[in-house]
């Protein structure tokens, strides 16, 4: 513990930002997916430094393990090879990025403004019965701050306590997602695929 958590947080955060930038801008799909996987693993480290080891493991298993692999399989099945890379380069010249970059810079500045201005208000409100981070900082009780990690036991207890309905709803959602993905991606045998006029 100590400073190494902070070093890990800022290091992994920098890696996540860089890898996400590369993932969003690459023309070759597999390269972009590898950078996306790197970014997700870096964010898993960020989760660990934020005192959420259970969520860090889930990030590695579900995001980097399942979702990225699903993307890799689809890219392989679509056979997006070197020909699409050249087409992708011609589709996204640098000037295409001007408008989106300006819009997302606007969104980013609004978010940063909201985060930086709301922290003073949140510490003033002091939500009832909950010791805020700033109260802990002010009390200089280092042991309490050191133990701010939320263990998997608490997460499980609230998953099957107050959030039981959410768990049931996500199971229904997963079932619906599975069925619709199976139905949508199924190869039609009887009617055949109509070639759409290009």
């Amino acid at each position, binding site marked *: 513990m100590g400073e190494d*958590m902070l070093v890990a947080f800022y290091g992994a955060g920098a890696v996540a930002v860089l890898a996400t930038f590369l993932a969003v*801008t690459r023309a070759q799909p597999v390269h972009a997916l590898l950078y996306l996987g790197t970014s997700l693993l870096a*964010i898993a480290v960020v989760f660990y430094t*934020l005192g959420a080891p259970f969520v860090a493991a*889930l990030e590695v298993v*579900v995001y980097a393990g399942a979702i990225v692999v699903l993307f890799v399989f689809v890219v392989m099945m679509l056979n997006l090879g070197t020909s699409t890379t050249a087409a992708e380069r011609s589709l996204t010249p640098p000037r295409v990025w001007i408008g989106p970059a300006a*819009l997302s810079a606007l969104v980013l500045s609004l978010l940063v403004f909201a985060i930086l201005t709301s922290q003073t208000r949140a510490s003033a409100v002091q939500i009832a019965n909950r010791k805020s981070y700033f109260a802990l900082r002010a009390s200089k009780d280092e042991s309490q701050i050191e133990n701010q990690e939320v263990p998997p036991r608490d997460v499980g207890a*609230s998953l099957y306590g107050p959030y039981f309905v959410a768990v049931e709803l996500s199971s229904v959602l997963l079932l619906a*997602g599975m069925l619709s993905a199976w139905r949508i991606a199924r190869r039609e045998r009887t009617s055949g695929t109509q070639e759409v006029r290009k």
Partner: protein
Amino acid sequence: MSFSFPLPEHALLLAALLFAMGLAGLLARRNIVFVLMSLEVMLNAAGLALVASGHKWAQADGQVLFIVLLAVAGCEAAVGLGLVMRIHRRSRTVDSDSLDSLKG
């Protein structure tokens, strides 16, 4: 060293930065696979914001909501990629601008 955990505001700023980059990719890209990837980046940034807030108040709610978000992201990826495969099979393209067969 008195504080071993990073400031929650910095984690929120990181989440905002990742969200903005995902938004830029979502708006600029025309290949549907890349659009879905940018969407995953944005969902993940939202999850980072949830976990950071849960950490700030030392409550498990943020992590619970992240798990629900994980289910949503999984469904979104599965259905979205199924649609991509369907579109690719029908019209032999993953370029969203050339999908104009509904145009009169």
